């Protein structure tokens, strides 16, 4: 719990995206329809119209302040509402001030511009209500409790871990580093900006199976393999994330600002249940770098990965499909 030495509002700001348009190199604008954003997922997908070379996107915003913000006897003055877009991959911070829809209204609106060249993947959008409190300017009196995600490449507004799947022949690929792995059906590379699964097309029929939508048993096996790969990815990215932590001068680890941070925040509740994210991270870091407890943690890391990969469900589906074919064979 953060302590504030002044009066604040104890409820968060509500934030909605109301419109999205892209500015194209020929200076025209493409107004995207509502499929570009999802309120339940709190995500905007700017790749939805598949323009390769847009310059910037304008995202229309509407923020609702909690009750009490605009009371005439509120303990603050100069109330302002700012939308702030941040991106840990590119160190970008873009701020825009929203306007009050009507005097004393709780509704504030405006639009923020997202420059294409300033982002690789995802950026976070938050809204802060700021005021002069006890004579101090610029104090935060409340903010959104969950950020919106602005995904500059996604074609669908979905949250969750993104990964890249590439199919290639490990023995003939131009990526020569894959050759030593010729015996593996797939390998995971968690060292890059996004985790990548390299699928080995030297395994005959493998890419047909993964690409096919043939239905029936093939589909179930396909699902099972995908969930296997996803388990591997989640495990690899967890280790890559905790293996590369920045440490504050006082020894406490810092959440990475890129997708590694997202992965850790998502998996830690399963790896170290019942602790706040920061405390959980500290404990994991201590176990990894200290002398005890790292091996014991592996079961929990595996559990967190398996859960996210939906392994249980895909296994159940295969088993059910198997039973069905067996029954059909017998009859």
């Amino acid at each position, binding site marked *: 719990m953060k302590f504030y030495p002044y009066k604040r509002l104890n409820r968060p700001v509500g934030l909605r995206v109301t419109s999205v348009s892209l500015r194209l190199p020929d200076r025209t604008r493409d107004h995207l329809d509502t499929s570009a954003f999802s309120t339940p997922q709190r995500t905007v997908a700017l790749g939805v119209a598949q323009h390769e070379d847009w310059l910037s996107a304008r995202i229309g915003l509407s923020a609702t302040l909690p009750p009490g913000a605009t009371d005439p006897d509120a303990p603050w003055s100069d109330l302002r509402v700012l939308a702030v877009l941040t991106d840990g991959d590119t160190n970008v911070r873009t701020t825009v001030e929203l306007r009050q829809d009507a005097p004393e209204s709780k509704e504030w609106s405006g639009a923020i511009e997202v420059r294409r060249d300033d982002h690789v993947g995802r950026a976070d959008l938050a809204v802060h209500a700021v005021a002069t409190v006890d004579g101090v300017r610029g104090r935060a009196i409340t903010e959104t409790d969950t950020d919106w995600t602005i995904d500059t490449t996604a074609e669908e507004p979905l949250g969750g871990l993104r990964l890249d799947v590439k199919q290639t022949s490990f023995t003939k690929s131009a990526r020569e*580093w894959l050759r030593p792995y010729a015996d593996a059906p797939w390998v995971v590379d968690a060292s890059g900006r996004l985790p990548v699964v390299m699928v080995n097309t030297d395994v005959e029929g493998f890419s047909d199976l993964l690409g096919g939508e043939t239905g029936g048993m093939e589909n179930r096996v396909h699902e099972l393999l995908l969930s296997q790969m996803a388990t591997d990815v989640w495990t690899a990215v967890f280790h890559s994330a905790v293996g590369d932590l920045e440490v504050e001068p006082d020894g406490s680890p810092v959440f990475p600002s890129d997708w590694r941070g997202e992965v850790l925040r998502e998996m830690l509740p399963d790896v170290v249940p019942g602790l706040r994210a920061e405390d959980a991270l500290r404990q994991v870091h201590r176990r990894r770098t200290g002398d005890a407890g790292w091996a014991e943690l592996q079961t929990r890391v595996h559990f967190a990965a398996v859960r996210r990969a939906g392994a249980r469900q895909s296994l159940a589906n295969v088993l059910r499909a198997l039973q069905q074919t067996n029954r059909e064979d017998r009859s």
Partner: protein
Amino acid sequence: MIEQPHHLPPRLGLLSATAADPFLTEDLLRGIQGHGGVDLAKVVEPLPEEDPRWRAEPLRELIDDVLHQFKENRTEADAWLAPRLHAALRLTRREAADRRIWNHLALGVAPDYVAWRHASAPSSGSADSRVAAARFKGSPDRQCFSRLWWAAELFRNGRDYAPVVVACSNQDLIHTVMRSDLVDHRPTAQALVRVLQSGIATTGREINGLMAAINTAGATLVYDAMAADEWRDPEDLRRWIEEAETAPPVPRHELPTGPEEEPVPEKSVETLTKYFADLFETAPVRGRAPQG
């Protein structure tokens, strides 16, 4: 010390950390034996042929000059190289966030520079001197070249690189500040440079104290509300990048000129500079008597 690779790549490419790993041998990191370059070239993914920005030669010449000029004082090389690297390798932030470019520059084009700049102090016995692998392929604030490029990007004021020189002249500042996201706010970055220039905070301890104070205050304050920034038009940067094709080599004696972007509003920088200086007055700094 290792030499530059015998086979220098003509163009920059993308070298993933996983592909780079086998080349970061113990001998390379200890500065005993470099690599020939031929095998490394096989694992590099090419960048588009037609783009003149990926020519490696201008970058290698820059490296040769900095090696020559700062032979005796390698830490001072940062302030010289950061703005020049930024102006010679014109990237969008989106491109610069791809670590594979930096991996290739470090391992393929200038491993000798990385070893020279970041070998642990020779005082501990030259046989034991070693370069951290993160200087070749680490996080953006650790990797030899990306930390300089990003320092230049975050501290330049529009086209003006002078603040970059101030920021990079102080190892404590770039070391401490680049890890925090405070300087993502351009007025904050410029105000930090002003505070440094004014001589209010200069030593490592003082800078750590100042950063801690700014962070603590920043937990309840929104600096954007105190000091607004200007909108930067993305076309200004694109134009500058396109001009890379016809741009002469970056000047060695003068500072280069950056993209013609809107500078940070002067009023915002002044407001924050004054605010930070006041904060520092009352900040607890190790080794400094509490101020009354």
